């Protein structure tokens, strides 16, 4: 059975812009992988068509079905993790084996406050 995981140092899930994230990507696979990639990306969810942007990719050189590799990524300045009524911007790390045959995603928060920026109240008559 295949098992992928991403461990971020100190189990940190919230980061400020420009902060460096360190951690370990781990995998236990039944077969030898052809490729293992860690992507830092953001994507949108909400009413409209989803958008996605891969900000950084780390390709691990490996021929071992079970392995772990350290990584270090300096986070960009934005966009911030955000949720409004029409759109959410979500940051995540994604560990991908063999171009998507196996995938593990871990969400993170990127914002100056360490919390998702929300615009979740409005004045209205109900």
């Amino acid at each position, binding site marked *: 059975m295949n098992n992928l995981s991403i461990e971020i140092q100190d189990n940190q899930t919230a980061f400020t812009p420009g902060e460096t994230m360190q951690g370990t990507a781990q995998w236990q696979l039944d077969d030898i992988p052809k490729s293992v990639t860690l992507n830092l990306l953001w994507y949108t*969810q*909400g*009413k*409209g*068509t*989803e958008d996605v942007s891969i900000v950084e990719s780390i390709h691990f050189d490996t021929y071992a079905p079970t392995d772990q590799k350290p990584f270090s990524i300096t986070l960009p300045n934005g966009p911030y993790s955000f*949720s*409004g*009524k*029409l*759109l*959410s911007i*979500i940051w995540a790390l994604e560990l991908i084996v063999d171009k998507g045959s196996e995938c593990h995603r871990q969400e993170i928060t990127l914002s100056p406050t360490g919390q998702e920026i*929300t*615009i*979740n*109240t*409005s*004045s*209205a*008559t*109900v």
Partner: protein
Amino acid sequence: MTLVSAMKARDNPFAIHRLQQTPYHLADTTWCDLLDKLESFNNRAAVIGQHGSGKTTLLNKLYSRFKAMGRCPVTAFANEDTPLTWRQLKQTLTANPDRQILLLDGACHLGRLTWYRLKRYTHKRQIGLIITTHNPGLLPTAYHCRTDITLLQNILKELLPPHEIPNETSLEKLYQQHNQNIREVLRTLYDQWAYQKK
């Protein structure tokens, strides 16, 4: 004036990613029969239906199924605002040498010459060509997307807990207000949920 908590976009049950996770409700056929029918047309066939009847959703589901079958599908999308040129289509096909099937959404928006070139190019190279279009005639029809209130109810059952599903009368009203266009009904429901009081 009352302060209303708006639902986060990511949590809205009618967000696009939630809709994409719902199973496609085929009418009067099964996936197996539909794939057999497409195969009998050498995967050169049309999915037809009016606006908001589920053609694009069906094409997306077919993409996943063909990919899982190792058939290397590629996609292209045309609409009134972005009509594809032959050059763009050829680039899509040549950039993916392993492709076996082109899934073209909005074939009715191609120019006549572009359509003719695409049809001839894919036929000569035995590339499948599955299209969506509003009316029959471009390729043999493999499936006709139709909507009804039961389909809408079935979709809502996938998205909402039973007690939150609007009653049949208000659903029927919404459905008719949007000229039986389920996509528009779901967009309206998105807005209603986005502003609902928590």
